[in-house]
């Protein structure tokens, strides 16, 4: 009884920890996704600025 109780307790603990770890990973992934999109937007703006700069130089 005691052994099975301990086993059940440890199983519950490990399940809870697993859920917490998964939540943390999901949070990290979500943050990473936003970062990736921001980086893409930034890169795109920079590329546009470079292109515009080059076209403006061409006007002179």
């Amino acid at each position, binding site marked *: 009884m005691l052994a099975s109780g301990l086993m059940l307790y440890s199983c519950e603990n490990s399940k809870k*920890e*697993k859920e*917490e*770890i*998964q*939540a*943390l*990973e*999901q*949070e*990290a*992934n*979500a*943050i*990473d*996704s*936003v*970062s*990736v*999109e*921001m*980086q893409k*937007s*930034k890169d*795109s*703006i*920079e590329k*546009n*600025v470079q*292109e*515009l*700069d080059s*076209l*403006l130089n*061409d*006007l002179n």
Partner: protein
Amino acid sequence: MKNVAQKLIALTLILGLAVFSQNMYAQKSNEQTPKKEVKEKTEVKKEEMKKDMSKKQEEMKGKSEEMKGKSEELKEKSKEQEKEMKGKAEEQKEKAKEQEKEMKGKAEEQKEKAKEQEKEIKGKAEENMEKAKAKTENEGSAYGKDKGELSGKEYGQKRAEEAKANQEKVKAEHTQTVENAKAKQSEARTKIDEAREKLEKDYKAKKVSKEEYETKKAKIEKAEESLRNLEKRL
């Protein structure tokens, strides 16, 4: 004889009297003549003076009419100027209002764009998150994986912290990029407008050929398009 003498004396006396009275009359008439002349002259002068006066009065009236006319003209002009000024002021007010509206509109547009971008980024992030979630579920989480000396929970916490730090860094860089791009945007607008104006002037002054004009115009259009793209992104 005595009678004759008496008659002669009487005749002489009568003649003398006649001559004397004639002389007196002549003298009187001589005295009266200058007075008449003076009177006449005075009358003539009076008439002349009257005529002069009336002439001058007429002249004065004319001048006064002229002055009145000029004053009316000036009044009209000043009224017209006032109207013109009012019109211009109204026009400027209208322009200012329009500009204000335009600015407000642009600000609203930019806000909308920023919201859309935010939504887009969030949407994409959610999509990516879903993918990552699916991947995690398929491949299994960090739980039970090789994470060196860290436990699964510690590893997860570290990952989340690193992701947050990285996001802050990317966010700051993105903000800086947007600021720089905005500065470039206004600089580009000025340069493009100036280039277009110069090109039109040069072409009108025949300083550039039709071919050169077309080439430069195409370049300006290209730069304008690139600027519009940038404006959409900001």
